[in-house]
């Protein structure tokens, strides 16, 4: 279980610090909602390690995460946009998720499998700049599969997609979460995304997480 226990953080000039506590179960999507500027992205930055809390605890199955830098945390990230490097192909972008030192033939095989799992078989050599918004998110999900980290942090990942692509990408995230037993934390202000995906739902109110 991913557990945040009273993570306290304040941006410069912020009078009342945030106090975040939550629990996210494996194989489930935990949704976070809140008004603009309520601290949703700050919470994800704390979980990913981009900012450090003043106090509090963050553990995964009892193991401390706060002492780990962002690159060493068991976490993958999926943002609203800019998840890919546009000059690289789908295959090259996904391969950035492979563990260092993976032999090339093995890597190519794993990348092809991951792209097939997200429904992009045959897109290997297509340049990221030429992919649609939904395809880009799928490539990023393929990279997440290759990274094989148990926590997936999603920051408004469906906001830039059209209705149909949004629905299919959402379904893919749900299916991958269950299949790979990820602790998926979804930040969204779209009620339909939350209703379709989340097993648990927190709302940020006055700097604190409230279970809905």
């Amino acid at each position, binding site marked *: 279980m991913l557990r945040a226990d009273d993570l306290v953080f304040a941006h410069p000039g912020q009078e009342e610090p945030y106090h975040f506590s939550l629990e996210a179960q494996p194989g489930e999507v935990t949704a976070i909602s809140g008004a603009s500027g309520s601290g949703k992205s700050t919470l994800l*930055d704390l979980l990913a390690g*981009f900012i450090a809390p003043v106090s509090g605890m963050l553990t995964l199955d009892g193991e401390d995460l706060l002492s780990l830098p*962002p*690159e060493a945390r068991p976490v*993958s990230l999926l943002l609203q946009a*800019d998840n890919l490097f546009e000059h690289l192909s789908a295959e090259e972008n996904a391969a950035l998720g492979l563990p260092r030192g993976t032999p090339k033939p093995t890597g190519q095989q794993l990348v092809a499998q991951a792209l097939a799992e997200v429904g992009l078989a045959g897109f290997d050599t297509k340049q990221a700049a030429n992919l649609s918004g939904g395809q880009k998110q799928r490539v990023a999900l393929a990279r997440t599969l290759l990274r094989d980290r148990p926590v997936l942090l999603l920051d408004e990942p469906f906001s830039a997609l059209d209705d149909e692509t949004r629905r299919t990408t959402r379904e893919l995230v749900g299916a991958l979460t269950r299949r790979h037993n990820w602790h998926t934390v979804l930040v969204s202000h779209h009620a339909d995304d939350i209703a379709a995906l989340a097993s648990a739902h927190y709302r940020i109110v006055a700097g604190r997480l409230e279970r809905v």
Partner: protein
Amino acid sequence: MLTLPHRPMRVAAATALTLIIAVLIAAVLWAILNAATDASGGSRVDIAHLLRMTALQAGLTMVLSLLVGTALAWALNRLRFAGRDLVVGLFAAAIVTPGMVVAFGLLSIWGRNGWINQASEVLFGIGFESPAYGLSGILLAHVILDGAFAGRILLARLDAIPQSRLKMGQSLGLSAWQRFALIDWPALRGSLPGLGAIIFLLAFTSFPIVLLLGGGPANQTLEVAIYTAVRLDFDLVGAVRLALTQIGVCSLVILLASAFTPVPSALSRSTQPRWRDSAPVRVLQWAVLVLGAIGFALPLLSVLYDGLTSGLLRVLGQAGFWRATGTSIIIGASSALLTLALALMLALGRSAAYRQGARVMLGIPAFAYLAVPAVVLSLGFFLLVRTTGVPVGTAAPVVVVIANSLLSLPFAIATLGPPLDAIIRTRGKLIRSLGLSGWTQFISIEYPLLGRDIGLMLALAFCFSLGDLGVIALFGTQDFQTLPLMMYRALGSYKSNDAAAIAALLLIFTIVAFVGLPRLIERISHASRR
């Protein structure tokens, strides 16, 4: 700043390099100061006059170049025609066009035996005093180069004006003057002080143009006076005093300039909607553009014509020419590669630095050359080499390569720094969360995205070195000379046909390198990923 990828080695390497450059500059300054202390006896140099003259020509160059540049940018931003990209490229090449070549081209058009004087004698039977010598000639040559350079930089500012602002202006029916005052001027004025400071420094430290067109001591500048003091008058005391004055003034200008907005180096294509001005205004724009293009291109075309029709075969048959060409290419390539290594180390370290203080410190080497210009740097190295007892002939190639690299460093960092900063700013979080190694980050992400910028940087550094006269002038010997030095010596011994041919070849080499290198490197950087 945990969002930045953790790259302590990059910061450490850049810090070490900054210290090495600082020690090098300190050694050069020490050599100059030491010589000043040791030297006894007087000197005949009139520093007050030289300072006045240098500041006057640099100030006038700055004002005139900004006016010409603004007019050219305004006309080019409005007009659309076949070959526009070629004209824009021509103005962009001004920064690398060797000053000697332009000066020579001016003489061939405006000189006593130039085209215009000959035409005047044939048509009207009268000749006139050549404006190509003295202050007018210096200003003309400087404005041709710096006005075109300013035009290209300011055009980038105008081309970057948001479409929404233009659409709103168009819908309001603004006149041409209102459009300039309300939309263009606010976009331009922020760049003018920084650009003006750069042009002032370029003119203040200009060497070959003043050497060729100055026409005697009355119009000498500090740089030329230092050269004259060392090579012709053997007045080391005077040279050292002049060098210290030069460093003082340049440092002051840099200090003032650092408060201004930096000049953008990214030159993108315009995607602005069409908004044509009225017919009379368009006539004025065409007039500005045609005059500007003729003013810039005519001296260069004249150099090509004179060079290719007069002494070309004679020069090509000289063993000395091929030796000088080989030396120029080897020194140019070595300087360009050294500049690339230095600029990459500094820019990568700077983009990885967490603290603002470290970022400022790692930016300082870029100013080293501007504060200690070519001739002064050469003088310092010259004194240093003499002090250490190393034979000048042995040290010369190394010194020339190092000095030329420092000369290109500000432009190299201005080219590579912003794209590297942008990659870290937009993708730093992603790179860090993926845990990419520094090598993977460079090879997979930074290098392919920098391909064209690296090519542009190599081209700039190669061309600067190819056209340099300031450094080689003090270190050159009969056995160690580059094309500009060979050209200068040909002019000095009245072999003007040889000089014309060398100028034409120098110009051709410069154009080929400036146009070809960025494309070549971009292709290589893309091919290496396949």
